[in-house]
């Protein structure tokens, strides 16, 4: 049965691309005024207490960035306490336990609550503006991600006030972390897993935004470099975070139910955690670094007053760094006794990654040399970033050499190195970016004088703090000690470092004061204060919430420099989507490569449901920390209910009219399903991340087999083969039923489609029961072999359960005519989920059923 062509969804019609004659035709001012009024109404930000229901990218982005900034300041205060304790030898200011909590939380908060969220915040805030889009495709998803981040962040950081914070170091090595008494490790695992959900949500949002929401004409080779970095970093998040989520999953199963994944006495291996953590942890460094350098890539051309030199070289370096950074993780594990050839691979890859990283820095330098560079305030920060990052990079080259690393491992040399890379690669470019983009974000300027003061304080303080740490480390001072004896030559460098830390703090105080001081008396700023060439500087001053008045046709990399009259035509409403006839939020969706307009998509507006969903999702993650499993399950069920309500009421509803005018004579469809729609891409991207997490679990299975001579142990009980086969068959039938339902529905056989879905639910449920039966006799707490089989089974059951919920959702959709033969996006998205699910099912069956016989 082939899919019937969908007649109800028309093809785009009308002239494209627009001619110069069409663009130069004036717009009637009265019409334009009426359009502007309707647009303004549609994009209005809720007032009063309803303000928190806003989902507009500018609001969510500002909250996100401010929250991340506050978390950063709190983590910075922890750093100051650490430096106070270490200022003099044999200090008794802070107890050992408190000190452990402080350094663990300082690292965890800076990484998970500041660096990664800051990337998400800045991208949510700026990406639509770079692309001349109204908003990102899933505003409520951004808002949901933000509320998850806020709840999780407060929970994790708040624990330190109750003396219950995690204290096993930011990478939570077992057995220290698994054996640790108290809820600290659980808070880390569950709280941060919860925030990782927000990161993946943001990755989905940003990838789809960069691929599908570019303005007409903006081909991939024209889009701002920032969008390239967003694509690369989004892709990296999908492959880097899931291994950590899988690791967290195993870790929490050990903490809660004593399944011995990392316990060598029962066949486990703490090294598996190290692998999973660093497969996440090293790419993470580049996930932080690349978007920050992307901010620099937006500042440098403006400062040099010329287009960037070597656009494709920078794309090369972003993509190349993204790939190579996954081959570095073992350089955090050089002293764990792996074969030296293996160490060599990772050492070699660590040296290779320097090449693309260097290329992008050189491209910046060449651009500055080739243009007429001015040392503006943002550029000052970027220059500081380049200097500091280069120093961190050089010590990185040293540490990538295994023999040197053996000496410097776990010493203050490493502390110095990582702070040089993170300050140079993240803090400085981001602050430069805040100075540069502040006029765009808040429609006010920051103070030049305060900015320069803050720069010199932070730059000087930074070097005073961290340069001596290289020496302290080479003189043998280990990381993470809360007290040290006098007489090793460590006294002076530590004292200097502690003084420097307070100079940094003074600099941040100046910066934060500048950002938050009232600026009501400041005169209205010019629209494009830096003479930038990219679309964000077409913003409206004073602020409008619609993103852009009309979505321009863009054919150059620096449209404000290279396309005369662009801004005035945007303002006049000459370009696309100048109107909101139904006063609903809409944006334009374009094709991936060449950005040809394909359809107009409805964008969701303000809602409480995202907040409700985030609160219950938070409950599902946070309550298990205290072993309150029943309320946690209840909270999880309510979270699912909230998300279903949100999807049902606001996504993929059949449109009132199949097509509408998009401006410039173009008529575009208002609905898309399958690969044309943004939702399908979001499912695809999410499931790619999910598949990576699953692959990490399977990696765990084979890891145990590789490192242990007797895995599976002789005489071990295996999963019941017959029931396992039944489980795979049941889910296989469920998959076929889902696919069949999609085709039946498209053929307008609604009854048959609903019957297929109902049958699919039944057979899938049988499959789930069979899977539970297959592992029921195994005792996971006795040995790692039954434990990993159980873990795979849990994964299988959870994903199949979600599959059943989706089948039910579509069944209800057809019944209540949310899903019709023509408007069937839900069925396409659910089928896509099931494609990934069946892959999981087959691999699980093979690993559990076949591998023990073969190995």
């Amino acid at each position, binding site marked *: 049965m082939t899919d019937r062509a969908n007649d109800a969804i028309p093809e785009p019609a009308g002239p494209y691309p627009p001619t110069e004659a069409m663009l130069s035709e004036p717009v009637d001012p009265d019409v334009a005024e009426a359009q502007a009024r309707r647009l303004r109404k549609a994009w209005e930000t809720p007032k009063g207490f309803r303000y928190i229901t806003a989902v507009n990218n500018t609001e969510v982005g500002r909250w996100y960035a401010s929250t991340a900034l506050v978390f950063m300041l709190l983590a910075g205060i922890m750093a100051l306490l650490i430096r106070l304790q270490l200022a003099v030898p044999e200090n008794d200011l802070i107890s050992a336990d408190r000190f452990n909590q402080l350094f663990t939380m300082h690292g965890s908060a800076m990484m998970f609550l500041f660096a990664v969220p800051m990337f998400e915040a800045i991208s949510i805030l700026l990406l639509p503006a770079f692309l001349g889009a109204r908003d990102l495709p899933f505003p409520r998803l951004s808002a949901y991600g933000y509320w998850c981040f806020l709840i999780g962040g407060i929970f994790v950081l708040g624990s330190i006030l109750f003396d219950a914070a995690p204290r096993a170091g930011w990478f939570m090595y077992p057995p220290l972390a698994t054996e640790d008494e108290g809820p600290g490790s659980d808070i880390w695992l569950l709280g941060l897993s919860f925030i990782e959900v927000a990161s993946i949500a943001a990755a989905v949002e940003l990838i789809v935004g960069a691929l599908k929401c570019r303005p007409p004409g903006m081909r991939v*080779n024209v889009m701002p470099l920032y969008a390239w970095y967003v694509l690369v970093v989004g892709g990296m998040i999908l492959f880097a975070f899931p291994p950590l989520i899988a690791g967290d999953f195993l870790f929490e199963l050990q903490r809660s139910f004593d399944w011995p994944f990392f316990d060598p006495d029962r066949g486990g291996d703490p090294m598996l955690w190290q692998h999973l953590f660093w497969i996440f942890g090293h790419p993470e460094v580049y996930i932080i670094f690349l978007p920050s350098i992307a901010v620099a890539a937006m500042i440098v051309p403006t400062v040099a007053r010329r287009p960037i030199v070597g656009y494709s070289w920078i794309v090369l370096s972003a993509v190349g760094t993204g790939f190579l950074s996954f*081959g570095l993780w073992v350089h955090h594990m050089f002293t764990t006794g792996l074969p030296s050839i*293996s160490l060599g691979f990772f050492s070699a890859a660590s040296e*290779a990654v320097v090449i693309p990283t260097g290329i992008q820095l050189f491209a910046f330098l060449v651009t500055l040399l080739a243009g007429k560079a001015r040392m503006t305030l943002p550029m000052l920060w970027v220059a500081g970033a380049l200097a500091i990052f280069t120093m961190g990079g050089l010590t990185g080259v040293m540490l990538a050499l295994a023999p040197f690393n053996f000496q410097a491992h776990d010493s203050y040399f490493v502390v110095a190195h990582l702070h040089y890379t993170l300050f140079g690669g993240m803090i400085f470019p981001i602050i430069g970016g805040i100075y540069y983009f502040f006029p765009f974000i808040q429609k006010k300027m920051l103070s030049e004088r305060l900015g320069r003061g803050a720069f010199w304080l932070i730059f000087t303080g930074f070097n005073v703090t961290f340069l001596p740490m290289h020496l302290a480390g080479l003189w043998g001072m280990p990381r993470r000690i809360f007290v040290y004896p006098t007489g090793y030559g460590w006294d002076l460098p530590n004292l200097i470092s502690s003084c420097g830390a307070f100079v940094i703090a003074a600099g941040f105080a100046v910066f934060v004061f500048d950002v938050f001081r009232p600026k009501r008396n400041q005169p209205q700023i010019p629209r494009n204060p830096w003479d930038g060439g990219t679309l964000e500087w077409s913003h409206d001053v004073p602020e409008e919430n619609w993103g852009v008045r009309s979505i321009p046709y863009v*054919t150059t990399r620096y449209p404000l420099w290279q396309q005369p009259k662009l801004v005035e035509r945007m303002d006049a409403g000459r370009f696309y989507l100048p109107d909101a006839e139904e006063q609903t939020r809409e944006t334009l969706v374009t094709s991936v490569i060449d950005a040809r307009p394909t359809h107009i998509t409805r964008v969701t507006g303000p809602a409480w449901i995202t907040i409700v969903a985030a609160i219950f999702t938070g409950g599902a993650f946070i309550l298990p920390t205290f072993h309150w499993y029943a309320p946690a399950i209840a909270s999880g069920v309510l979270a699912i209910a909230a998300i279903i309500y949100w999807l049902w009421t606001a996504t993929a509803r059949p449109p009132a009219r199949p097509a509408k005018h998009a401006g410039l004579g173009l008529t575009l469809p208002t609905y898309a399903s399958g690969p044309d729609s943004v939702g399908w891409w979001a499912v695809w991207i999410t499931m790619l991340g999910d598949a990576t997490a699953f692959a990490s679990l399977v990696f765990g299975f084979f890891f145990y087999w590789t490192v242990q001579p007797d895995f599976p142990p002789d005489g071990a009980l295996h999963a019941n083969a017959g029931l396992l086969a039944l489980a795979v068959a049941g889910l296989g039938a469920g998959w076929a039923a889902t696919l069949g339902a999609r085709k039946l529905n498209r053929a307008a056989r609604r009854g048959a489609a609903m019957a297929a879905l109902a049958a699919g639910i039944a057979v899938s449920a049988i499959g789930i029961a069979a899977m539970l039966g297959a592992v029921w006799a195994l005792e996971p707490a006795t040995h790692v072999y039954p434990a990993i089989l159980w873990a795979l089974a849990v994964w299988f059951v959870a994903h199949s359960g979600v599959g059943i919920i989706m089948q039910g959702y579509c069944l209800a959709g057809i019944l209540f005519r949310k899903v019709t033969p023509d408007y069937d996006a839900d069925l396409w998205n659910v089928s896509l989920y099931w494609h990934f699910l069946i892959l999981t099912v087959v691999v699980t069956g093979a690993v559990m059923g076949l591998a023990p016989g073969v190995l």
Partner: protein
Amino acid sequence: MTRPTHPPRPDEDRREFSEEAASLWRITFAPVVWAGHFVLCYGIVSLACIRGLMPIAATRAGLVAISVAALVAIGWLGWRSFRQWDTAPDRAANVGETEGRHAFLGHAAFLLSIISAIGVVFVTLPLLLIGDCR
């Protein structure tokens, strides 16, 4: 620039310059070869040295052969993308045109194949320089 030797075929340009959704993937092919090579090296050496499935000398020789194969694959990808970049008409002038985008994707893929080749060579060095599992 080479000229095609056959008369124009219907839709030839359209296919050549049409959306090329695949070519956004294509720029990642060379790095994917690098990644596959890396995973093979890491996995197989672990099987040889830790699980003890096969002798390390033969493993090293086999992996060097795989490295050569990876380099050949990257070389071929690089050559194709070089052609795509270099033969695009007037490649510098018109970034906003289809040809400009076509050439750009070729150029990016070409540069990525160079960096991937360097990566493969780097990762092969330990196989040549380190003799055993210690």
